[in-house]
């Protein structure tokens, strides 16, 4: 019983960072109706810049965190300019393929920065664990959860209390109507890319501070976790992304404990497939348009 509760709580804590990654994917999908495959690579390049500073100059943790955020935002803007702004709105596939080749490009730059296989990443705390009764929590996990809750709260305020948030929501509802209302869609797209890169930077930083190391597979890893969490919750749905992230974290924690390490990733894919078969739109997503609805729209 204690194991079960401990695993669930651990899963929720680690899942909160998956939730942040999924939020990044889902906002871009909501605004653009396109998939940004370069999101994971964006975070990876930012993290590599931070690690590079750590390895070469031993700067303090705060500067590393700031460097990571700044470079992810810059990279995010670069991706938007090259893969999304430049390509025609109806060519969603062209954008997806372009964002994938950008992924390869960003990875190449990161590997040029730090060519070895693994590098140490500075952890946040020297304290190892917090004990509450029979349970044990890693300080990094608690920070992860706190930061994620803060980020989601801030995002909620931004989306529902500011003009930019209103514009972003209007655009994901109906891009054409939004532009008729005088919303500068290009600017909203750019700002939302900067925003999700910031969110991704925070997620990347907390994950790396927990793992205490970085490898060239980090981009691939963040992409998969974010995509799966987003799909579980439903594409384009913000609460869905958070729920999907937490669920993925919990399932991974349990399968790792009860079945072993090699089943951790497999169980995530089985979960995703099961959800897609049972509820194709994801848990909280808008239901996939049924044929009748499609026909109605056309009339």
């Amino acid at each position, binding site marked *: 019983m204690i194991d079960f509760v401990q695993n669930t709580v651990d899963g929720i804590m680690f899942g909160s960072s998956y939730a942040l990654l999924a939020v990044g994917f889902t906002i871009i999908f909501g605004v653009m109706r396109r998939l940004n495959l370069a999101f994971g690579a964006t975070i990876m390049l930012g993290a590599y810049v931070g690690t590079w500073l750590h390895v070469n100059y031993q700067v303090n943790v705060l500067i590393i965190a700031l460097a990571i955020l700044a470079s992810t935002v810059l990279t995010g803007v670069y991706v938007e300019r090259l893969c999304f702004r430049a*390509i025609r709105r109806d060519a969603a596939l*062209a954008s997806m*393929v*372009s964002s*994938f080749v950008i992924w*390869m490009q960003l990875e190449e730059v990161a590997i040029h920065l730090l060519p070895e296989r693994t590098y140490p990443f500075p952890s946040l705390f020297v304290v190892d664990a917090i004990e509450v009764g029979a349970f044990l929590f890693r300080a990094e996990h608690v920070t992860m959860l706190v930061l994620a809750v803060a980020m989601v709260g801030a995002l909620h305020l931004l989306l529902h209390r500011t003009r930019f948030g209103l514009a972003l929501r209007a655009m994901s509802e109906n891009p054409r109507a939004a532009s008729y209302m005088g919303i500068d869609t290009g600017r909203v797209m750019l700002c939302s890319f900067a925003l999700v890169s910031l969110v991704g930077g925070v997620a990347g930083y907390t994950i790396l501070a927990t793992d205490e190391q970085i490898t060239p597979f980090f981009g691939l890893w963040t992409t998969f976790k974010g995509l799966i969490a987003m799909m579980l919750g439903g594409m384009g749905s913000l609460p869905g992304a958070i729920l999907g992230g937490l669920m993925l974290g919990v399932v991974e924690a349990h399968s790792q404990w009860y079945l072993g390490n090699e089943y951790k990733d497999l169980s995530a894919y089985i979960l995703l*497939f099961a959800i897609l078969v049972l509820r194709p739109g994801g848990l909280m997503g808008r239901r996939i348009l049924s044929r009748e609805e499609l026909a109605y729209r056309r009339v």
Partner: protein
Amino acid sequence: MAYYLGLVQLIGIHTLLGLSAYILMLTGQLSLGQAGFFAIGAYSAGILTVIFQLPILPALFIGALIAAFFAFLVGFPALRVKGLMLVVATIAFSEFVRLFFFNLSWRVPRGDIVVGPDSTNGFREIRYFVANGWSAWEITAFVWVFVVLVMALLWWSDRSRTGSVLRAVGEDELAAQSVGVNLTAVKVAAMTAGGFIAGIGGGLYAHTATYVDHLTFTVLLATFAIAYPILGGLSSVFGTLVAVIFIQGVLVEGLRFLGDWRNIVFGLMIIAAMNLKPSGLFDAPTARILKRAIGLDERGKTGA
């Protein structure tokens, strides 16, 4: 010379991979599961020639059938999701297959060595061609026989009722359904055919490379598979071939002199191509210009 023959073989195999995604894209489905089917074909055909010691042709055929069977199974649940959801669902399938082969260990002693897939160490010693004394020329011809066969079959079906049905589903599902097209049957058939073609490609790959491991079949390969038809355009099977030659022949080989910086330039060139021609290098207008240039397009003449 052997090096260039290897490149020609690789172009042939990647063309098969691209065509397997092409037939799906005709029906409007975008699948990143082709790497998974490719992997199933590669491992099955390899296991059949190495452990069961079958000749190459039945091994390839059975491997492709197994891949097609899994494509058929994936086809049904995948039908319920569409567009980008299908993309991510099929990524999950590909990764699932990759993790399966990552854990698969099936070692059989053969003479004084042990052969078969060895989980993380990969599947070595798929030496059918070497053991039977095939020359590089023969292997290349063998690969291209399959490429030409598949291309001819697809080209011909594009000019028959089959092609029209596939394209009708891709253009407008609702309209296709209202003229009596069975959507489920068409989509699952396209998925199965795609799985079969990818399975042949995978089997050929395993035998020409003699070594495969799970890292061969990542999402990178799956993206290449759909990048070929997207870059080449969907107007004809030749678009895919042109795109494979452009990417594998010109970009990957031609930019080798750039060394480590190759991927950066490679990325920029594909983005440039996508920006200039979003519907493919070999799209309908280009095809018409080419046809007119070699005097195949009769419409242009009668109009003048």
